[in-house]
C-alpha cells in the first residue's frame, strides 16, 4: 500500500462521511458524460462562461436552486459549502443540517457536502448534467474533494494559499500545503480517466485592497504546485479591482506570466484559463445600485476577455441570496455578454511593464529560497513576508504591506513591507498617490477605499 493510498484510507474512513467504493468511483468518472467536465466546455466554447455562487443546506433546496439556474441558461453550476464543513467541523454541520431540515430555516450558509455524501449528491449532479464547480475555502479539503469528485464535481476551486490566508486564522500553513498536494494528486490521477479535472485558484483573496502583483504571484504559485502534480487544466483568477485599467493590465499580465512559468517547468501542455470575479468587496446597501455594479463587472469581464465570470447578486450586502435573485443575476449577466459585441483590444504598456517587473522580482525571490521543494519555498516566503496579503486574518501573514487607492482608483502599494519589488517599481507605485503625513487621514482614506463601491 503506497503512502498516498494509506492517507486516503484514513481520510475517507470518517464517521461523518460515506463509505467510499473507489472502484465504483473510478468507473463512474471514466464513463461520466463530457458535459460534466468544465475542461471540456472550455475547450469547445469561445464565450465567457457564467457561474454564480450558491449553496443551501438541504438537498431539496439545493435541487431547487439548480433548477432555477438551469432555467436561466447557466453555464457552470456552483456548489458552495457551509463554513462548518470548511473548517472540518462535520459535527456542527450535521447538527445544523438537521435543524435546517426540521425548521425550514437555513442554519448553514452552504451545502454540507460531506454530510450529504457523494451517493446522494451525485444523483443531483448527474440529473442536471452541467459542469459543477466546488466553492469552499477549506485548508484541509481532502475528504471534501474526495466526496466532490466522487459526486461528479469536476472543477475544484482553491489552493493552499488562496483558501488559507483569507479564510483561516490558525490553521497551519505547512499542513495546508501538504493537504492540497494530496488534492492535486487525486485530481491529476482522475484526470487520466476521462476529460481533465479542472483546478481553479481563488484570486480574490480577502477582496480588500490586495494589489495585483500579490494576487498574480499567488496565482502563479498555486498553478505551478498543481501542474507539478500532473493537473492538466488550471484556471487562474482575480477579482475586479475598482479600476478598469488595473483589471485590464492584470488580465494581460496574468495571461502572459502564467504561460511563461508553466512553460518554464515544462508544463505547456496544460490548458490555462482566466476567471474574473465580479466585485468581491463590500457591496452597496441598495439593490438597484448593486445591479448596476454587477453589470459593470460583467462589461469589464468581457473587456478583459475572461474565459469565465463568477457573478454576485443584488442581495450581496444583505445575506445569502434567494435562488430567484441568484438566477436573475445569471440571466442578466448572460444577456449582457450576449449583446456586448465589438470588444476592443486594450492595454497599457507602462503599467504592464511595471506589474510584470514586480511579479518577476517576487517570483525570483520565492524561487531562490533555499528550501528544496516549491511548496516549502512558498511557505517560507509567506512566513517572512515576501508574500503578504492585506487584511488576511491568518496569524502567519506578515501584515506589513499597506495599499491605498490613487485618483483613478488603482490599488497602489504605499508600504512595501518585505515585498522584494525594486526601488523603481516602488517609486512607480508611490508616484501615483500623494500621501498626507497625518496617520488618521491615511486610515480614513483606507476606510473610504474599502467602501469604494458604496453609494
Amino acid at each position, binding site marked *: 500500500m503506497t503512502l498516498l493510498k494509506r492517507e486516503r484510507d484514513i481520510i475517507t474512513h470518517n464517521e461523518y462521511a460515506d463509505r467510499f467504493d473507489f472502484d465504483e468511483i473510478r468507473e463512474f468518472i471514466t464513463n461520466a458524460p463530457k458535459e460534466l467536465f468544465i475542461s471540456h466546455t472550455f475547450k469547445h466554447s469561445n464565450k465567457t462562461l457564467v457561474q454564480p455562487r450558491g449553496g443551501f443546506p438541504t438537498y431539496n433546496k439545493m435541487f431547487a436552486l439548480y433548477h432555477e439556474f438551469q432555467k436561466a441558461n447557466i453555464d457552470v453550476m456552483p456548489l458552495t459549502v457551509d463554513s462548518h464543513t470548511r473548517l472540518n467541523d462535520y459535527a456542527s454541520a450535521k447538527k445544523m443540517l438537521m435543524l435546517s431540515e426540521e425548521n425550514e430555516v437555513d442554519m448553514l450558509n452552504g451545502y454540507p457536502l460531506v454530510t450529504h455524501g457523494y451517493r446522494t449528491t451525485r444523483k443531483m449532479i448527474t440529473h442536471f448534467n452541467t459542469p459543477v464547480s466546488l466553492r469552499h475555502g477549506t485548508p484541509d479539503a481532502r475528504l471534501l474533494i474526495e466526496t466532490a469528485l466522487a459526486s461528479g464535481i469536476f472543477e475544484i476551486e482553491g489552493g493552499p494559499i488562496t483558501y488559507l490566508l483569507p479564510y483561516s486564522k490558525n490553521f497551519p500553513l505547512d499542513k495546508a500545503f501538504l493537504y492540497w498536494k494530496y488534492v492535486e494528486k487525486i485530481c491529476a490521477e482522475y484526470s487520466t480517466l476521462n476529460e481533465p479535472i479542472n483546478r481553479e485558484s481563488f484570486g480574490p483573496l480577502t477582496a480588500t485592497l490586495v494589489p495585483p502583483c500579490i494576487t498574480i504571484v499567488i496565482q502563479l504559485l498555486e498553478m505551478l504546485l498543481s501542474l507539478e502534480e500532473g493537473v492538466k487544466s488550471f484556471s487562474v483568477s482575480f477579482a475586479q479591482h475598482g479600476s478598469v485599467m488595473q483589471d485590464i493590465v492584470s488580465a494581460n499580465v496574468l495571461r502572459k506570466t502564467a504561460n511563461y512559468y508553466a512553460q518554464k517547468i515544462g508544463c505547456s501542455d496544460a490548458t490555462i484559463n482566466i476567471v474574473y470575479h465580479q466585485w468581491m468587496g463590500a457591496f452597496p446597501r441598495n439593490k438597484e445600485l448593486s445591479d448596476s455594479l454587477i453589470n459593470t463587472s460583467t462589461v469589464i469581464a468581457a473587456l478583459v476577455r475572461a474565459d469565465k465570470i463568477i457573478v454576485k447578486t443584488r442581495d450581496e450586502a444583505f*445575506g445569502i441570496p434567494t435562488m430567484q435573485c441568484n438566477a436573475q443575476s445569471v440571466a442578466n449577466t448572460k444577456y449582457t455578454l450576449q449583446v456586448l459585441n465589438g470588444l476592443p483590444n486594450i492595454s497599457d504598456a507602462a503599467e504592464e511593464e511595471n506589474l510584470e517587473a514586480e511579479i518577476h522580482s517576487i517570483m525570483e525571490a520565492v524561487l531562490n529560497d533555499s528550501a528544496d521543494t516549491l511548496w516549502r519555498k512558498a511557505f517560507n516566503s509567506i512566513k517572512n513576508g515576501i508574500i503578504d496579503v492585506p487584511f*488576511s486574518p491568518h496569524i502567519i501573514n506578515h501584515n506589513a504591506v499597506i495599499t491605498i487607492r490613487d485618483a483613478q482608483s488603482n490599488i497602489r502599494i504605499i508600504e512595501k513591507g518585505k515585498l522584494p519589488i525594486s526601488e523603481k517599481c516602488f517609486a512607480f507605485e508611490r508616484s501615483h498617490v500623494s500621501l498626507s503625513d497625518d496617520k488618521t487621514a491615511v486610515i480614513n482614506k483606507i476606510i473610504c477605499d474599502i467602501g469604494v463601491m458604496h453609494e
Partner: protein
Amino acid sequence: MTDRIKKVVTGVVGNDIHVVANRLIDISLQARGYEVFNLGVNTYLEEFIDAVIETDADILLISSLNGEAEGWCRDLQFLRSEYQLKDVVFVIGGNLAVGEAKCEDIVPKYKAYGFDLVFHQIDLNTGLDTLEAFMQDRITK
C-alpha cells in the same frame, strides 16, 4: 460604575473569518478611548467569556458577519448567569442571519439570548454612538 477607562473585549464569533470590520472596530474603539482586547476572528463563545473574566471587562462586543451567529449564541444566557456577568454589557452586531432578515425580527430574538444591545446591519459608528449613550445612561442611573 466609576468613570475609569472602560475595557472592551471584542472579536468575531464562531467559524467566521470576516476580519475587515474587526480591524475597523479595533481602531474605532481605541479612538473613542476604550481599552481594547481584540480576540480577532474565529473566536468561540467560551473564549469570549474567559477573556471578559480575565480582563474584568465592562463590555463584550461581538461581531458576526457570516450569518451563523444564532447557532453560537443559544448558550449565552446560561453562561452569563453561571459566571454572574450581569454588570457586563453584552453587545452584538454585524450581519446576524443567513439570508436577508429584518431588524424587527432579529433584535428581540438576540435580546432574548441575553444581549443588551443588538445591531443587525447597522453602521459601526451609529452602533458605537448608541453604545456610548447606553453606558452614559447606566452611570447616571
